[in-house]
């Protein structure tokens, strides 16, 4: 029997354009006959996978944030008698695995998160290189990013048409996020003034354009196949727990980066329901087939979601064994409770 972890979230985004189509307008979908905003599955996953948050959640909390990894490697190599020019080159190669380097240097541009295991792996590699007096091989470098790499690919999978041996089936299923409310995409017509235009010849704008935007409460659904995740991580139960915790945290806190400079539409989730069980997973999107309207959108959406959960249970039998939820509108529950619940 497979253990599934299902997450249902309601996240309210103010006016935004988080995920755009080929015309630069927010993506939409028709649900229950009305237009809704949509953030595609791939957009959500990209935001979580590439977030600083996701990476640091995976490094053990004793992990190091540093730009100076290269310096340490360089000193280590010199100490062990490697020539300066070789040490410089190898240090840059090793540090480059953890982040983009400053030009002609082995300093990492931005703070990189390095877990204790990764630091240990770097130290081991430094020893090997010094002993054998050779440059690091590509394969050795790639193995340095052990945990984040394993978790990223175990959760989200990998497909390579060219070398199927490396394929990994994703343990996580992420649905497109769709608003519970009907939306109308609005157009913001904007102009940019040319400050040096003296209006002597022409008083027009320097630039004109329009940007589509809208707002809404998104229903997000994630299903994690826990057995598959552990299998993908070669049976490492502890790492699987860390992976699930990191995913929950990123999903609850990280927004896609689209048009964030124009809209600053970052949002934490307002409601999260986590479920565990071996029953056939199902999303609860039918709760919003009829678009939610009226004053208290969020309150109504939460109520509809819970009602739908109960109605499915009533009609089809229990759809999950255990549940845990947080509600940021009323202040009930906590993200830590959810994380402890899904990890167990």
């Amino acid at each position, binding site marked *: *029997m*497979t253990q*599934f972890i299902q997450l249902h979230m309601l996240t309210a985004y103010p006016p935004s354009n988080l995920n755009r*189509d*080929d015309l630069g307008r927010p*993506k939409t*979908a*028709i*649900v*229950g*006959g009305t237009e809704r905003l949509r953030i*595609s*599955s*791939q957009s959500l996953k*990209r935001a979580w*996978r*590439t*977030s600083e948050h*996701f*990476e640091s959640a995976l490094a053990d909390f004793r992990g190091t944030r540093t730009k100076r990894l290269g310096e340490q490697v360089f000193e280590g190599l010199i100490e062990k008698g490697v020539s300066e020019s070789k040490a410089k080159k190898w240090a840059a190669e090793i540090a480059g*695995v953890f*982040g*983009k380097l400053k030009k002609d240097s082995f300093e990492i541009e931005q703070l990189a998160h390095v877990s204790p295991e990764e630091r240990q792996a770097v130290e081991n590699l430094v020893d090997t290189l010094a002993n054998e007096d050779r440059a690091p091989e*590509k*394969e050795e470098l*790639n*193995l340095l*990013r052990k945990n*984040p*790499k394993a978790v*990223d690919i175990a959760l*989200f999978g990998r497909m*390579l048409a*060219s*070398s199927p041996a*490396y394929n990994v*089936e*994703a343990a996580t*299923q992420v*649905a*497109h996020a*769709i608003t519970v409310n009907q939306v109308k995409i609005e157009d913001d017509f904007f102009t940019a003034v040319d400050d040096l235009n003296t209006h002597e010849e022409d008083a027009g704008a320097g630039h004109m354009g329009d940007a589509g935007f809208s707002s809404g409460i998104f229903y997000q*659904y994630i*299903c994690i*196949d826990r057995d*598959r995740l552990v299998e993908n991580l070669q049976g490492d139960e502890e790492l699987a727990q860390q992976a699930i915790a990191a995913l929950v945290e990123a999903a609850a806190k990280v927004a896609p980066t689209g048009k964030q400079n124009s809209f600053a539409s970052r949002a934490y989730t307002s409601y999260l329901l986590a479920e565990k069980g*071996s029953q*056939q*997973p*199902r*999303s*609860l*999107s*039918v709760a919003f*087939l*009829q678009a939610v309207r009226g004053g208290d959108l969020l309150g109504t959406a939460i109520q509809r979601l819970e009602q*739908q959960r109960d109605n*499915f249970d009533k*009609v*089809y039998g229990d759809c999950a064994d255990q549940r845990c939820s947080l509600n940021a509108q009323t202040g009930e529950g906590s993200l830590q409770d959810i994380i402890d619940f899904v990890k167990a």
Partner: protein
Amino acid sequence: MDDYLVFQLYAPLAAWGGQAVGQERPTNDHPGRSALLGLLAAALGLKREQEQAHAQLRDACRFGIKLFSPGLMLRDFHTIQVPPGARKQQHLKTRRDELREPKLGTMLSFRSYRQDALCLVAALSSDADYGVERLADALLEPVFPLYLGRKSCPPAAPLDPEVIAAPDLRSALDSYCIAPVLARLQTGTPRYYWEAGMNTGMRHDYRAPRHDQPLSRRRWQFAPRDEYVFLGGE
């Protein structure tokens, strides 16, 4: 009388892949044989590389479909950022690491979905290893997560499999009750689709070729077959 396994399929977005070449990834308005076999195989826990088991399941099952609503088409613009020249061993990195590379390129595709499509599926099995009771149990507690064509399309209602003894396909499909909450999705008269050699209890208005009989999952090969269609009514 035959035992039919009947279940409902609904998700806000579903993708029943047609022949996809290059950037265009189209969808049909109802599931094909390959999609339904894949769904059952996922529930049973057959892995992609288990060629033999997939072939056995394929030979065992025949499907009929009652389409309540074909849904509306959605053509999704999908971009993927990729590091230049797909360097050797690049795939051993995390996505975050990958996107740190300078000069990223973009791959474009258009992926089509059906929005709010709803159908019923009736399956017949001629193989005791994959009998309808076993398939029903597998759908209730699947080994792998189920999805409607693409992994990003999870079912939005229990499939609620039911084994129905009926004289023909139509009475099996017509005696199943869809979830009340989904009833509002029905548009017009339901259409019926089935494959050759089924006892249907209805005439076919036309027949059309489809290219969805899986030959090999590993090689991704499909053979043509005929699909029979009844447009509904009397």
